[in-house]
């Protein structure tokens, strides 16, 4: 019966961000929030494991005043309870701070066999949090997991590297970061959505987490963020018909 903690991030939808043509400044004013795409896969993987073997899933999330709106979304996907840390430090937090806060918070939520999170978040895709958590919690890390299974207290993970697949076995507690291909996240049914509001959710304060000031200050300082300019040629081929378009294209490509 695995006891699983899943960490997710409440992020702005990058599809809603627009880039100002002249200054390349980002305009996030119309952006709505969502649970980071790959975190949904992580939640689903954990929930399915518990549906199969018993046990329960709880979620932990660290964010600003918007993060509270994520709880029903997360809970409608199957976890039994949610924890959240709402603090302005999250706005400038880098992976160092995030991992410090999450590790301390996870410690407050009780015993666990696994911490599951996505390999990276859809906004920054830093791919660090899982491995950092393992180091801070002093437990083994398994990253790039594509399959996850439980056999009487043994955790079996298929890990996907560039050329090989590792099949690893260990006993918990362990931190596992998963690839999106681990499973397809469900679309929650209406009953699950309505039941989500009745599941317990607990707010943890940063002050309860026994972190030093240093641990809450980011190590990476953001200097600037600009829309990416793609320096492509942008040649649109517009001959009279497709055959001529193709000829023109092949002409260009010969030169390249």
């Amino acid at each position: 019966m695995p006891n699983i903690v899943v960490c997710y991030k409440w992020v702005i939808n990058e599809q809603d961000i627009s880039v100002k043509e002249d200054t390349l400044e980002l305009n996030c004013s119309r952006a709505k929030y969502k649970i980071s795409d790959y975190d949904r896969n992580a939640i689903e993987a954990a929930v399915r494991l518990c549906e199969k073997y018993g046990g329960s899933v709880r979620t932990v999330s660290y964010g600003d005043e918007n993060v509270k709106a994520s709880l029903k979304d997360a809970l409608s996907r199957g976890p039994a309870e949610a924890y959240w840390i709402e603090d302005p430090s999250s706005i400038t937090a880098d992976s160092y701070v995030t991992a410090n806060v999450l590790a301390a918070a996870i410690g407050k939520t009780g015993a666990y066999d696994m911490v599951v999170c996505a390999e990276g978040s859809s906004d920054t895709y830093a791919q660090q949090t899982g491995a950092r958590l393992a180091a801070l919690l002093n437990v083994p890390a398994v990253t790039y997991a594509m399959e996850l299974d439980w056999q009487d207290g043994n955790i079996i993970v298929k890990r996907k590297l560039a050329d090989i697949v590792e099949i690893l076995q260990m006993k918990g507690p362990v931190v596992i970061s998963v690839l999106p291909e681990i499973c397809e996240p469900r679309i929650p049914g209406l009953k699950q959505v309505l039941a989500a509001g009745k599941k317990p959710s607990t707010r943890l304060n940063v002050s309860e987490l026994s972190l030093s000031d240093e641990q809450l200050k980011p190590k990476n300082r953001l200097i600037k963020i600009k829309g990416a300019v793609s320096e492509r040629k942008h040649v649109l081929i517009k001959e009279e018909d497709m055959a001529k378009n193709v000829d023109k294209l092949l002409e260009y490509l010969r030169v390249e």
Partner: protein
Amino acid sequence: MNLPLTEEQQLIQRIAREFAEKELEPRAEEIDKAGEFPDEAMRMLADLDLTGVPYPQEYGGGGADKISYVLILEELARSCAATALTLGAHTMVAGPILEFGTQEQIEKYAPRLCKLEDYGAFALTEACSGTDAGALMCGAARDGDDYIINGAKMFITNGGYCGICVLFARTDPDTPGSKGVSAFIVDRKESPFEAGKHEDKMGIRGSDTTELIFRNCRVPKGNLIGKEGQGMRIALTTLNVGRITIAAQAVGIAQAALDEAVKHSKDRRQFGRPLAKNQAIQWMIADMARDIAAARLLVLHAAKLYDEGRPFGVEASMAKLFAAEMAMTHTVKAVQIHGGLGYIRGTKVERLMRDAKFTEILEGTSEVHRMIISGDLLK
């Protein structure tokens, strides 16, 4: 648009959008072309507890409020109006049973409908009675412990697939008009009837529209809803609620048209610049956006009144009248913006224009709603 929705309602709306994009959008064109009944989509909706949204969970319903229900319908209609109507018409059927039926009737029929064990159909309209519903001729003659139904219904949504229909028939041949009409639950397994001609429609072609033919169809007296003579009241109460749902579908169709029109205006270049640079097009887009926003608020307002248990009939009529007419106007404009392309089968706006028309006709024509709204003020 920042609507006054709760977190939960926003989540429900997001989920409906996710489902519509994933499961309805890819098949909508095919369903329209083939006139194919969206059974697969309906089964998926049932799995997500969405085939009895506004009804109590103890009877298999979703237990959600009317606002959530109309949000869902708008998002579904935005991708496939035929599926949205199939769902709306089906969902409507459990309404009169839950509101006017006995506990026995509720327990027997509500779960079958809410869980989509049976499709539901609302059988009111006949060849001789559309807007003039009270002129219906289908008869229900008492015979011992049963009623024997004889007659034919026309233009019944889900008629060919329904396992349960709520039927309106004349129990008192000597009382003409509304007062002689009663409402029945007809269980097709126990009281078989035929689905007749399947109509080949202009739009919402995936929706199933048929005649229903009752030939000496025996219905047990226990299936009478309420009392004899209450039929028309039951019908109108149900339709009152139904019109909010049609309005929501109209808003969805119009929103889809706006989305297409915006995309095309930016894409299409004539005279060396996108159509979007032309004021004529800009004004069309502005009017579309304005009317959709207004219609959406009317729909939500009517739904909110319903949820609060306050009178909502006139507001529902206003929402339906406005939403349907603006959906028709703006889908036509959207086709116009697409030019020749908009006239070709396979272009989304061509289907939207054909789909929009039904909203001006079903569940009370625009003319009926004008009667209702002015009647309220001028009585």
